[in-house]
């Protein structure tokens, strides 16, 4: 395998890992606040649709992004209503949200564009163009490093850089700010937060709002950057992979980066090679696509580094009597 190939696979890894990363961080905020979120997939999907639709109509990718975020937040709010306000089952709510998203996007898409649920192709300003970082051209000639800088680091959509910046930002918010302290606390023991005079409901709503924003960016990235328009079910299980990555990352931001990039790499490699031959071993493509899920089950089984979720996760908070 040549150096070029490695760089190109890693380049693909970054592109494919970014939506996972954004969705994973979204899940991280939500679950750190004690709200299980299996609706990442659905939120990404509505965002992918509405961002593409608005970007197509306005010709402006940034307006698309706003629409994507707004629609994802509406779904996040439904989840909040069910799981925070009405103390319903968070998992059931997530399942419903995923179904609702896959149905409503096609329904509205067909109504608006009459293209069977997809949006017209986006071009020009309706898509996020790749950003060339400074000196990318100039450094191109430098052996190895130039290639890495030009191909791997430079030349991605602005949303990719946003995604990567979200990692330190998340870490900082979570561990260095008042909001982060309270957020982590409410996911572990909401009663502690409540008795300390901080509103559990407000904290959890803000957490799922952040999750909505991040899923919105993730969905927008899918339809307005990675692809050029919305396609039915275009998230294709990425929300679930992000969920798997979240467990794999043990609900920590830097680990989330690692996990999502690992899963992105798996995706990139399985795209490139239908089968991988390692000596006598033939690894079929289907196995590669199942690896994130298998790894997550192994982690969950606790044989390798047990993942302990936030203690209050999944339980609606009811005041003790």
């Amino acid at each position, binding site marked *: 395998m040549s150096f070029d190939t490695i760089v190109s696979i890693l380049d693909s890894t970054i592109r494919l890992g970014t939506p996972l990363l954004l969705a994973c961080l979204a899940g991280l905020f939500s679950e750190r606040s004690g709200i*299980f979120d*299996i609706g990442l997939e659905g939120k990404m999907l509505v965002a992918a649709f509405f961002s593409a639709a608005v970007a197509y109509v306005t010709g402006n990718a940034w307006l698309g992004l706003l629409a994507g975020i707004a629609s994802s937040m509406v779904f996040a709010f*439904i989840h909040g*209503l*069910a*799981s925070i306000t*009405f*103390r*319903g*089952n*968070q*998992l*059931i*709510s997530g*399942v*419903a*949200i*995923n*179904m*609702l998203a*896959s*149905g*409503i996007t*096609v*329904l*509205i898409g*067909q*109504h608006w564009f*009459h293209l*069977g*649920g997809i949006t017209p192709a986006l071009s020009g300003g309706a898509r996020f163009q790749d950003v060339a970082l400074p000196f990318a051209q100039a450094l191109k000639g430098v052996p190895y490093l130039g290639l890495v800088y030009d191909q791997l680091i430079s030349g991605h959509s602005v949303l990719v850089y946003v995604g990567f910046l979200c990692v330190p930002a998340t870490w900082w918010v979570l561990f260095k700010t008042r909001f982060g302290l309270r957020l982590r606390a409410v996911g572990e023991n909401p009663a502690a937060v409540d008795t300390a005079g901080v509103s559990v409901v407000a904290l959890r709503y803000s957490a799922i709002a952040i999750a909505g924003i991040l899923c919105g960016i993730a969905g927008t990235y899918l339809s307005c950057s990675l692809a050029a328009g919305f396609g039915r079910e275009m998230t294709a*299980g990425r929300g*679930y992979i992000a*969920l*798997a990555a979240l*467990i794999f990352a043990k609900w920590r931001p830097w680990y989330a980066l690692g996990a999502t990039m690992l899963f992105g790499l798996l995706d990139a490699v399985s795209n490139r090679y239908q089968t991988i031959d390692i000596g006598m071993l033939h690894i*079929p493509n*289907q*196995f590669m*696509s*199942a690896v994130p*899920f*298998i790894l*997550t*089950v192994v982690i*969950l*089984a*606790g044989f390798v580094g047990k993942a302990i*979720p936030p203690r209050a996760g999944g339980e609606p908070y009811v005041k003790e009597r």
Partner: protein
Amino acid sequence: MDRLPTWADAILVPVLSIVIAFAISAIVILGIGENPINAMGIMISGGLGSTYGWGYTLYYATNFMFTGLAVAVAFHATLFNIGGDGQAQLGGLGVAMAALYIPWPNWWLALFGASAAAALFGAAWAAIPAWLQAKRGSHIVITTIMFNFIGSALLNYLLVNVFRPVGSMDPATANFPKATTLPNLSSILGLVGIPFSNQTPANVTFLIALLACLLVWLLIWHTRFGFALRAFGKSEPAARYAGISPVKITMYAMLISGALAGLMSINNVMGESGRLVLNSSEGAGFIGIAVALMGRSHPLGILLASILFGFLYQGGAELAMWTTIPPQLILVIQALVILFTGALDNMVRMPVEAVFHRLGKRRG
């Protein structure tokens, strides 16, 4: 606190939830520029207006009864089996292997053998998440989700590389031998003189599903195991106090759940397509969640909810065929039903409780 009377809890609240879900669906239909009353008309005439429509409605309902019962059995043990879809697909693998590799002399022996294989494979696919939950405390919701994906990747591999007949481009198994063809509902009803369309895939499995409803009802409310299952579901510490093994209950509940989900494939794989195709379950495992929620995890409720969803599916397919409304409308209705009967239950329940409280006060 005030409690609702049983009838209100079992009937009024779910019916209200469904009414709300349907009202919102009607608004959605209006929103996409169609007439909900027309749409409803097409659905009713297409789903219930002929024995043909009923045939498909019952065919779908059969699938949902199995997956609904699967979810319900696990629910009674407070286990949320979200992996019904994967278990159903693996069940399909069992059916396919039984039908293809064993030379059955007649359909009912084949049915017997294939049912056993379907249940076994479905249960096996539930066994690992169950064991991980029971022994290692891994969250069963997450593991069953993961197993859905792993299962579909596995089937994808097997259908493409192992079971695809030489020369075929379809990722599907060969057609099952003639001897395994199940009698359809029309020939069964014909025996008792009821004319029924023979163009539908509704088949003898529907009767098995009815039997499954009865057996699950007996199991849950009339056997020792069912008693232990419910006790464990209501309070794990109390169950342990009573000497009920959480590991055993978790395992058995999930095995039964997986077996029921797997049994669904008798209907679609053996009864309908006569071969195993990709994604044979078509999301029926997820509809099982809606069905179980709506039916309050009671077999009778599940039967009714399954027929409702069967009707929605058949009506929706007709709708897609005769109008420009995409069949995804059904997904939306399904999602709303799950949302209102499941996650937003309290939103409906609290006002109802308030009304009953006030009525109770006035009377008292």
